[in-house]
């Protein structure tokens, strides 16, 4: 039995390290003779394209992409997933079915391509800073402004005082301007984990500041 320990999340136990027959066949054919490899790559690409089309269709409700452009995005995602899978074939450890592992790369490529598309075709500025948008972002009702005005002002002050310049830029882009995180990844030439970590730290610092200054009553967050 193999276990992958997670620093904060417990362990994922791999109960069956033995490859299932279908996954074993995929590995054998993808590592076989040139003819076997080509046939397997064509078959796998067909599967990846079907999954990519399904995924872009599933996400299309949030996008301003449709028709041939959406299908082109699916083709690009499937092709780039195929490249990633081929390059990382030796890293497949049999912890899941081969196809589940392979489809994961389709999800990553679809996310990356949608993020880049939004970045190239923004419907909002990444860096504009309009604090009047904030109440709407969190559903504060205009009729109740007297109750939330101080809280929003306190949040604005905390953003100015406790965040680093990078955390502030990320907060403004994501929260005030509604920029999708993956589009911000493209804008900053960063990666999802780094942006998320900056935002995670910013959220923790802002909440602590709002509690300290009496805008939120108790610190119920689990963070320190």
């Amino acid at each position, binding site marked *: 039995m193999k276990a992958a320990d997670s620093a904060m999340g*417990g362990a994922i136990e791999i109960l069956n390290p033995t490859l299932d027959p279908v996954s074993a066949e995929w590995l054998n054919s993808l590592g076989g003779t040139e003819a076997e490899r080509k046939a397997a790559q064509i078959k796998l690409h067909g599967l990846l394209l079907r*999954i990519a089309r*399904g*995924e872009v269709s599933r996400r299309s409700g949030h996008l301003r992409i449709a028709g041939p452009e959406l299908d082109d995005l699916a083709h690009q995602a499937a092709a780039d997933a195929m490249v990633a899978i081929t390059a990382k074939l030796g890293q497949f450890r049999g912890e899941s079915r081969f196809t*589940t592992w392979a489809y994961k790369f389709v999800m990553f490529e679809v996310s990356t391509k949608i993020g880049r598309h939004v970045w190239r075709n923004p419907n909002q500025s990444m860096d504009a800073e309009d604090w009047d948008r904030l109440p709407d972002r969190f559903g504060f009702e205009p009729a109740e402004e007297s109750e939330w005005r101080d809280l929003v002002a306190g*949040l604005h002050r905390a953003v100015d005082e406790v965040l680093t310049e990078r955390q502030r830029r990320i907060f403004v882009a994501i929260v005030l301007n509604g920029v999708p995180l993956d589009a911000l990844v493209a804008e900053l030439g960063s*990666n999802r*984990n780094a942006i998320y970590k900056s935002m995670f730290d910013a959220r923790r610092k802002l909440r602590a500041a709002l509690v300290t200054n009496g805008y*939120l009553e108790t610190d*119920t967050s689990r963070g320190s």
Partner: protein
Amino acid sequence: MRGRSELDRFLETDPRDVGCEEAMEFLHVYVELIADDPQAGDRYPGITAHLRACGPCSDDFEGLLAAVDSSAS
């Protein structure tokens, strides 16, 4: 006041949250566990906490789960 609780929820962080990199490293394993048992996430709080807080990773999770389901049917 709905806005206050929304803001509070947004700012709340869970120290068990493993972050994008680790969650995505094990996404294929986690998805198969959830596909077999929807309650399996309770046993992996770090990934579950992350998917609850990270929209893009949650999207990837939902997409992969749908892909696995569509392949099984």
